[in-house]
């Protein structure tokens, strides 16, 4: 079979003698002279030099080269240089094949004759390969520079603010009626016992009323229900539940809350009650009540409109408000959906004054159910307190890992509790203790709690003794336990699981969101255009939330720049429709979810925006229906044939 070879120019670089002292280029020319492509050779002293490049450009044009092979250094060094040369000479840059005869030839081969033969062989491979190259071109598409931030805890707020400060439009989506996440509900934060609301209020204030608030659209009571598209061009469907309060008209006086005759459980405090309309706790922002239809008398069909009768602003209450479905076009998504505590007691535990760390935080918070008094359910002060650390952590039956933040939390709670009730006996029950860092070390040093080590969580038991209730470890140690607080492991929040499912993001063994790289790219999801902030990435503290919020915003800012189109590299996978059998193997293989199933055409399709050109699907397709542009089967086979002939 004869085939017409395109006119192929071969540039042989001496690299100022570094290559040519080993490789005899004239001999190579002789050995390759009868190659069917009849290559046109040109030896060059230093092909990458700017003067030389000018000369090479003219020569390529003179000889009307259609393909170019450059035998020089590693493509990791000068591939871009020589692609540029081809462009300048009017040749498609992907009609280039570089042969690495320096790092992988001259420098690793003792014998000059052997090095010359090796170079000949490699160039023969390149001649065969380059003949199969097809013209490729990068394509560019416009992108949205608006960013959606999901979750308005510290991480999400920080991300939103950082983006807004850079002039970006941000949509901040929060499922709760208020923002601030968990720490805004804590009276004092580790390590300096700074008050949570005091730390976060300026941030929230800036988001809601600062100059940047112009750029921020806040959607409370909202959840993302569907995501379409890809990096640069996402379409998010958002469902917003009605607040039944006109956010523009309401002045936040909370008279409605005062006059409401109905009560519901205050889930945010995990204790106490709340009016059917109102805010979960004083100081919640935005300063707007919300109405709970499950408990509101009017919504239960009873004739009650006391709140709207008493409201000083006409029309601020809107019982007709409906759920809204919104569609948002954004270029990037920052996920800051957080973590949660799932209260867990040891097997068989029941009784009074047993609570999780979150409930305890809310109990001692000045805006909590008791106004900050540390009291038991019967209203009296406890005489003894046990803080059970590692409560379900480091435990094969519960959570195998250590959350790394609860020891510090326990030190803080021990300190706060002791300050609230004089003479309180505090015991910290630990399995292991992890308190790295200077501040934590100082707290540990100042800690007055008794420390008892225990083995199994489920071996803990409660007993009423003559001197009051005691908690017994499996090892037989007894500690006074008038009140018991469990520091349960930090688990991924329900919102985190939900977005992971919507975006089909991988999750780690514990259910937190997988990262593009655990060290270098821990604030980026493996899906392009999705960034991660805060404890949806894994257990973390407030400091980390702020830091990763800033980091995620920085990634979104640098990925989407106004006026800069998205350049899509052409070396991606492509499916031959006639060959695709529809087995969908590739969908599971792709690490970037770049392959979609086209139900109408009954075939797989590669989204070139997401494909990074690794070729795993190419190798994995049982029908050989996928090929990798720039590294096609045909090219690789030709190269192999060339080097082996």
């Amino acid at each position: 079979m004869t085939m017409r070879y395109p006119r192929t120019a071969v540039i042989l670089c001496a690299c100022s003698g570094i290559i040519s002292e080993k490789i005899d280029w004239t001999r190579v020319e002789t050995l390759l002279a009868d190659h069917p492509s009849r290559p046109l050779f040109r030896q060059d002293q230093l092909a990458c030099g700017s003067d030389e490049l000018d000369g090479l450009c003219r020569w390529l044009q003179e000889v009307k080269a259609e393909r170019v092979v450059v035998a020089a250094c590693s493509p990791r060094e000068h591939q871009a240089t020589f692609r540029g040369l081809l462009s300048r000479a009017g040749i498609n840059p992907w009609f280039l094949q570089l042969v690495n005869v320096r790092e992988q030839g001259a420098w690793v081969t003792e014998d000059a004759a052997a090095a010359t033969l090796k170079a000949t062989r490699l160039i023969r491979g390149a001649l065969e390969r380059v003949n199969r190259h097809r013209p490729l071109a990068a394509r560019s598409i416009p992108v949205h520079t608006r960013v959606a931030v999901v979750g308005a805890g510290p991480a999400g707020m920080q991300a939103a603010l950082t983006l807004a400060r850079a002039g970006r439009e941000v949509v901040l989506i929060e499922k709760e009626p208020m923002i601030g996440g968990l720490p805004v509900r804590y009276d004092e934060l580790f390590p300096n016992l700074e008050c949570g609301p005091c730390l976060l209020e300026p941030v929230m204030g800036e988001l809601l009323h600062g100059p940047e608030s112009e750029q921020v659209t806040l959607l409370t009571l909202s959840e993302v229900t569907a995501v379409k598209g890809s990096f640069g061009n996402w379409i998010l469907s958002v469902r917003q539940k009605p607040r039944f309060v006109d956010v523009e008209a309401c002045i936040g006086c909370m008279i409605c809350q005062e006059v409401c005759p109905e009560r519901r459980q205050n889930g945010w405090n995990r204790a106490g009650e709340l009016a059917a309309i109102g805010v979960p706790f004083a100081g919640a922002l935005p300063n707007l009540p919300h109405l709970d239809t499950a408990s509101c008398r009017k919504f239960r069909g009873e004739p009650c409109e006391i709140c709207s009768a008493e409201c000083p602003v006409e029309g601020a209450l809107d019982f007709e408000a409906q759920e809204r479905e919104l569609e948002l076009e954004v270029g990037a998504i920052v996920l800051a959906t957080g973590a949660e505590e799932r209260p867990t007691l040891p097997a068989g535990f029941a009784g009074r004054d047993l609570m999780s760390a979150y409930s305890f935080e809310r109990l001692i918070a000045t805006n909590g159910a008791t106004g900050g008094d540390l009291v038991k359910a019967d209203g009296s002060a406890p005489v003894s307190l046990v803080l059970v650390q590692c409560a379900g952590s480091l435990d094969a039956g519960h959570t195998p890992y250590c959350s790394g933040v609860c020891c510090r939390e326990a030190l803080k709670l021990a300190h706060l509790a002791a300050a609230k009730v004089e003479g309180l006996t505090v015991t910290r029950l630990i399995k292991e203790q992890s308190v790295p860092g200077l501040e934590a070390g100082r707290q540990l040093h100042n800690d007055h709690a008794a420390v008892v080590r225990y083995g199994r969580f489920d071996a803990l038991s409660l007993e009423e003794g003559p001197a009051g209730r005691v908690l017994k470890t499996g090892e037989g140690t007894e500690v006074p336990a008038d009140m018991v607080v469990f520091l349960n492991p930090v688990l991924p929040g329900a919102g985190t699981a939900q977005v992971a499912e919507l975006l089909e993001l991988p999750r780690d063994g514990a259910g937190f969101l997988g990262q593009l790289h655990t060290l270098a790219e821990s604030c980026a999801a493996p899906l392009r255009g999705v960034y991660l902030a805060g404890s949806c990435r894994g257990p973390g503290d407030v400091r980390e939330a702020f830091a990763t919020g800033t980091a995620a915003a920085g990634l979104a800012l640098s990925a989407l720049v106004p006026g800069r189109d998205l350049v899509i590299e052409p070396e991606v996978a492509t499916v031959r429709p006639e060959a695709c059998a529809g087995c969908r193997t590739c969908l599971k293989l792709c690490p970037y979810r770049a392959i979609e199933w086209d139900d109408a055409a009954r075939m797989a399709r590669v989204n070139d925006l997401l494909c990074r050109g690794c070729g795993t699907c190419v190798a994995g397709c049982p029908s050989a229906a996928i090929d990798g542009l720039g590294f096609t089967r045909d090219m690789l086979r030709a190269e192999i044939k060339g080097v082996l002939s």
Partner: protein
Amino acid sequence: MSECAVQRDSCCREPAELKIVAFLCNWCSYAGADKAGGSALPVPPELSVVRVMCSGRVEPTLVLETLRQGADGVMVLACHPGDCHYKEGNFRALCRAELLERLVVQLGVDPVRFCFDYVSAAEGEKFSRITCEFAARLRQLPPIG
């Protein structure tokens, strides 16, 4: 370097007779091979490198075809576990390599002719050593085919 020289002395075939194809992933192994060059470490001259973006690109049939085309041995070199630039390509490559090792035996090919290993961008020395050792092992075998 001496290790390689010794092995070459004990060889029973001329270097030029041997044909080895090594598939190297762009990000680690290929960089490791460049590193061997930067450190002037020996690499068998019979070795021809075929650069791919990721070891996960190399399908078993490509390896088999390379052997059929007359290669005495084929290497697939990848980033270390956990280091793949594309997250898990090297894991796929490992699975395919395990399959291949069993497959080549069925086809009457000595499994010694196939080598899967990990070479990081820093491991120029390892690249030199494993390629020299692979060539030395192949020289003990009769020509393929």
